[in-house]
């Protein structure tokens, strides 16, 4: 009886057409459909990933030999600055926003984001910021050369004396991307709090949604502070104020505080959705419920909270007083508690499961292994004595590349393979996917592991020439880097080939549990013919519980 009346009410005449839109032109339009915007984000991010990757290839090419012989030193400076900037602001943030855009409304049973037009505006700011950043290659003096963190006084030098210089353009591009992120954060938090389907309580939300919310909360309190610092730096650079200029009584270390107050939590903004992706993929491929769902959900909020009080671990050698170093060492080490809980929960989920090693699972497992390694080096770095020793060396570079490539990028590939059938309605080629995985898993280790011994031996980052005794590890790292470059080819081939292929993917190729798997692949324009009524827990694998009310 209940079912009938519910159905009758929602079956009104104003329901739109329920079939997927297939017109490719809409991906180049100001579409307000969250799924179109999601794919726009993902593809834009991937193009920028290729751009940042080309920079990385040149950098590793330079580092094969101890001498500075491939590119000019100032070009090298510009390349590592742009590599970091493009990879963070062009690849990791946008692709995660893309997945969040595509998945959050589907996962919580909403027809779209809370503010669809704001969503589209936020997306279109990303290509604008990217083009602006690339334009800095064509201004006199070239792009910014002060590294992705733009510390003054280096970033204040402005050797050409022009008002329009690489550093100013860099600041503007980062500001545009920041405004876009704030718009996104407002949209995501509102959508998750206000737009959940009936019965979708907070503790029935998939972990991916929990983690997107935790990550976006960080954006909301962190980004404004970076913006404050960036505004002051921009004023120093253009108007001639003296906030960060030590020659005029300013305080350059204050900029480091502004920068890291956001930019360390930013790492958690990037990695929390990846933790969410792990939490979606492991139960599916182990056929077991996620271990400790509630604790995993709450630990995400805990990470977001603690992330606000760890930033000074980047400033151990910036004249920071001893008590401050001690405090921030302890808070930083504390991050490993909620993170450890998650790793434990994933391991327990896999444990004794009926594992299937399809490409998404391989990427997720590989990323988890690399993440544990990154976590261990992270804890060593949080310790003041070790950090003082390896500060500004390749040890740090190795650590965060295990995070940003090993975990985040590999996790993103897991997500791409996992949701590719849902997004395109086509299956990818498993063989090419596995080839991509092994190339990137081996390549990542070859590329980033040697950075640890190099750093411990004292090789500084951001230099294009080095002492000859570091050559062996550098050659290995460069081989790994080129392997990572090659690994993208089977991926591109796979994606384009499968998208063109006519073999349709079923609604739920992985037999996964979740609202997004109840609708067709690709989902219809407004997602749900009628808004589902959620009655069950997420991750009910191996249980015979219904997720939604049966109509």
């Amino acid at each position, binding site marked *: *009886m209940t079912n009938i*009346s519910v159905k009758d009410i929602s079956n009104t005449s104003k329901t739109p057409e329920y079939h997927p839109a297939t017109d490719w032109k809409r991906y180049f339009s100001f579409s307000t459909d969250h799924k179109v915007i999601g794919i726009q984000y993902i593809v834009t991010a991937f193009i920028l990933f290729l751009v940042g990757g080309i920079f990385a290839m040149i950098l590793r090419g330079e580092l094969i030999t101890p001498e500075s012989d491939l590119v000019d030193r100032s070009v090298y400076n510009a390349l590592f600055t742009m590599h970091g900037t493009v990879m963070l602001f062009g690849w990791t943030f946008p692709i995660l926003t893309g997945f969040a855009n595509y998945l959050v409304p589907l996962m919580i049973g909403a027809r779209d984001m809370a503010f669809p037009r704001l969503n589209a505006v936020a997306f279109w700011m990303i290509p604008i910021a990217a083009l602006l950043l690339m334009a800095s290659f064509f201004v006199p003096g070239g792009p910014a050369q002060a590294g992705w963190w733009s510390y003054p006084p280096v970033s204040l030098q402005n050797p050409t004396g022009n008002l329009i210089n690489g550093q100013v353009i860099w600041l503007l591009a980062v500001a545009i991307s920041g405004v876009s992120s704030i718009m996104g954060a407002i949209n995501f938090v509102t959508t998750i709090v206000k737009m959940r389907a009936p019965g979708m309580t907070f503790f029935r939300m998939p972990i991916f949604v929990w983690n997107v919310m935790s990550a976006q909360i960080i954006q909301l309190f962190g980004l404004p502070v970076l913006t404050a610092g960036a505004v002051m730096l921009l004023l120093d650079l253009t108007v001639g*104020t003296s906030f960060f200029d030590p020659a005029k009584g300013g305080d350059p270390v204050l900029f480091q505080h502004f920068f890291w107050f956001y930019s360390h939590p930013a790492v958690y903004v990037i990695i929390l959705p990846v933790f969410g992706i792990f939490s979606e993929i492991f139960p599916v491929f182990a056929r077991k419920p996620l271990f400790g769902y509630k604790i995993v959900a709450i630990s995400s909020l805990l990470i977001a909270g603690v992330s606000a009080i760890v930033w000074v671990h980047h400033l151990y050698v910036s004249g920071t007083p001893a008590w401050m170093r001690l405090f921030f060492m302890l808070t930083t080490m504390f991050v490993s508690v909620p993170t450890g809980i998650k790793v434990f929960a994933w391991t327990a989920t896999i444990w004794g499961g009926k594992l299937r090693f399809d490409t998404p699972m391989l990427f997720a497992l590989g990323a988890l292994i690399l993440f544990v390694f990154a976590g261990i080096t992270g804890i060593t770095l949080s310790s003041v004595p070790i950090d003082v020793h390896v500060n500004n060396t390749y040890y740090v570079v190795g650590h965060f590349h295990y995070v940003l490539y090993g975990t985040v990028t590999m996790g993103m590939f897991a997500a791409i393979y996992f949701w590719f059938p849902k997004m395109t309605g086509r299956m990818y080629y498993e063989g090419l996917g596995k080839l991509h995985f092994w190339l990137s898993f081996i390549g990542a280790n070859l590329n980033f592991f040697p950075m640890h011994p190099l750093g411990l031996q004292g090789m500084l980052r951001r230099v294009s020439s080095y002492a000859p005794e570091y050559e062996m590890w550098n050659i290995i790292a460069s081989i790994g880097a080129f392997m990572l470059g090659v690994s993208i080819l089977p991926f591109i081939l796979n994606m384009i080939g499968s998208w063109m292929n006519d073999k349709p993917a079923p609604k739920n190729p992985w037999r996964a549990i979740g609202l997004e798997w109840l609708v067709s692949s690709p989902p219809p324009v407004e997602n749900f013919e009628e808004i589902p009524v959620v009655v069950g827990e997420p991750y009910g694998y191996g249980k015979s519980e219904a997720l939604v009310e049966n109509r």
Partner: protein
Amino acid sequence: MDSSITSEELHSSRHEHTHDEEGNKMFGFIVFLLSETFIFLGFFTGYIVYKTTNPDWLPPGVSGLEIKDPAINTVVLVSSSLVIYLAERALLRHDLMKFRQFLLLSIAMGTYFLVGQAIEWSHLSFGFTTGVFGGMFYLLTGFHGLHVLTGILLQIIVFGRSFIPGNYDTGHFGINATSLFWHFVDVIWIVLFFLIYIWQ
């Protein structure tokens, strides 16, 4: 029967779910203001750090800031918060005339504040690039002034829209958000006034 009640509830919650655009907008706007608060917190923290660590805080030839006119300005701006609240109340009573009068008064008070600020700026003996003190002073008051200007523009839009027939059929988001923004601008100013003028 029990189950039919459930389905009615479901229906009503679904109805709300798709049509609570006003609620979503207000929630999103509050989230935005919370986020905006952190920009000011960043600037405030910067100000406190500079002031407490800088031995020569005031530039040469500057002995301090005149406090009388800014204090009058403060009283006017903070009182305008009450005025816009009265405007909101009038709208709830469907008293459009009163609503517009209070709104105009609030706009006038905001404008008085901005003009007062401009006059103060023009009489100061230091500029934007006069050390960290000058930079911080103009940055904080200027950034806040931009918010006051935004608040005034929003109120002018709300005023103009009140002449559109049926403007309030779908709710009061415009005036509610503007009013909240105006209170926000006031609270920020109170903190700023203590930081810059009282704590010298």
